[in-house]
């Protein structure tokens, strides 16, 4: 069957099977920024935003995505919050192997869309489903704090 989605602000049609998960459909169609980690909903490497909310695409039934808006890491290059997040992740050294980074950035973007001035606890809660085995989280949390500060400063200018 076919599903129509708005992916990274572009209308697309994907061929899906009923037991496909969104992760596989996205990767089959070239969205390689969506990483396949655990396939258990535990690691968050496959995070995408569905209608603005971060979910594990390894568990999300592809058929359910019909008519929805999906954002992958490929779609945030020109996004106001997403581009700041990319900058600060580099500045803060919050990226090492990079496998978790798309999920981290998308979960952080969803947080900053909802909460302009998150506390450290808010950041930890928002990222609690995104595992990183390299950085130990300190630099990632610092990066999100810095992004939030930068975005606030830009809004005030």
């Amino acid at each position, binding site marked *: 069957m076919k599903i129509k989605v708005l992916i990274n602000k572009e209308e697309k049609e994907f061929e899906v099977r009923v037991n496909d998960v969104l992760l596989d459909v996205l990767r089959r169609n070239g969205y390689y920024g969506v990483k396949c980690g655990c396939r258990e909903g535990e690691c968050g490497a496959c995070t995408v935003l569905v209608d603005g909310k*971060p979910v*594990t695409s390894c*568990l999300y*039934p592809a058929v*359910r995505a019909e008519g929805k808006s999906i954002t992958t890491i490929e779609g945030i290059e020109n996004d106001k919050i997403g581009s700041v997040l990319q900058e600060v992740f580099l500045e803060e050294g919050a990226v090492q192997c990079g496998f978790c980074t798309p999920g981290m950035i998308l979960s952080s973007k969803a947080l900053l869309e909802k909460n302009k001035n998150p506390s450290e606890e808010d950041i930890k809660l928002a990222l609690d489903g995104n595992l990183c085995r390299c950085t130990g989280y300190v630099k990632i949390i610092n990066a999100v704090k810095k992004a939030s500060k930068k975005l606030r400063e830009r809004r005030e200018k």
Partner: protein
Amino acid sequence: MLRNLKNYYRVKNLSEAVKVLKKGKGRIIPLGGATTISKLDSKNIEGLLELENLGLSYVKDDGKKIKIGSMTTISELLDSKVIEKFADGFLKKAALTVGSTLNRNMITVGGNIYQLYLWSSLPPAFLDLDAKIKVIGSKGRRTIKAEEFFSKLPRKILSYDEIITEVEIDKDKFKGVKSEFIKFSKTKTAYPVISIAVILKKLNKKIKELRIALGSLSPLPQRFEDIEKEYIGKELDERIAEEIAEKIVNKAKIVPDIRASIEYKKEVTKNILKDIILSI
């Protein structure tokens, strides 16, 4: 994997949904949060029934009752001001222990109470709250008390053509209560080894209301009304708290698993429960 899965049904309303399930005779299952669909292993399931967009995502407060739609996600519960204010934030505390943010954006209230997985924190909370589970099926609507709903696996309580539509809680009983929900696990987002749900109301140091439920220790959540009743009117001190905790763990059904022995679970449950009773 659902090897024989062929069809996906979208319907316009609940009566159409029930018809699809009835026609499926157990081979079509409703789709809640869908976090476990890709992990199910069955040759029998041939279709998925979509429950999104049927008006089952809501949290309402009509003054006397709180009504939670079955397709409300755990994240939506956490965002609800009604839930935050109710019973000292009891349901919020429980909801925060379910999975991670990514999962909480998918897992639904209906799915959490139907599946009774290890990470199902809402069942012990709903037992404490005397919640009522509303369902619709081909024989009409019915309301099931939480006590009955969780007396065996819900899939044995509901017929294949029934859908959970709502959870309803009486507000009046819980005015002025204090509450706590503790998940004991190896890491913050790991599956719970033990879940403890306590609601307590004191008047002049005496126990006026006490509700204790445990989750994750056995396949079914457990409540201990007979022990709770014994202590109504008694003055709460360390000795009484210890006595209550001791009685509860001695009565609780506890099964061992790879993460912890029965003895360990008993000891930890007793200590956490005592601390909760004394601290809230």
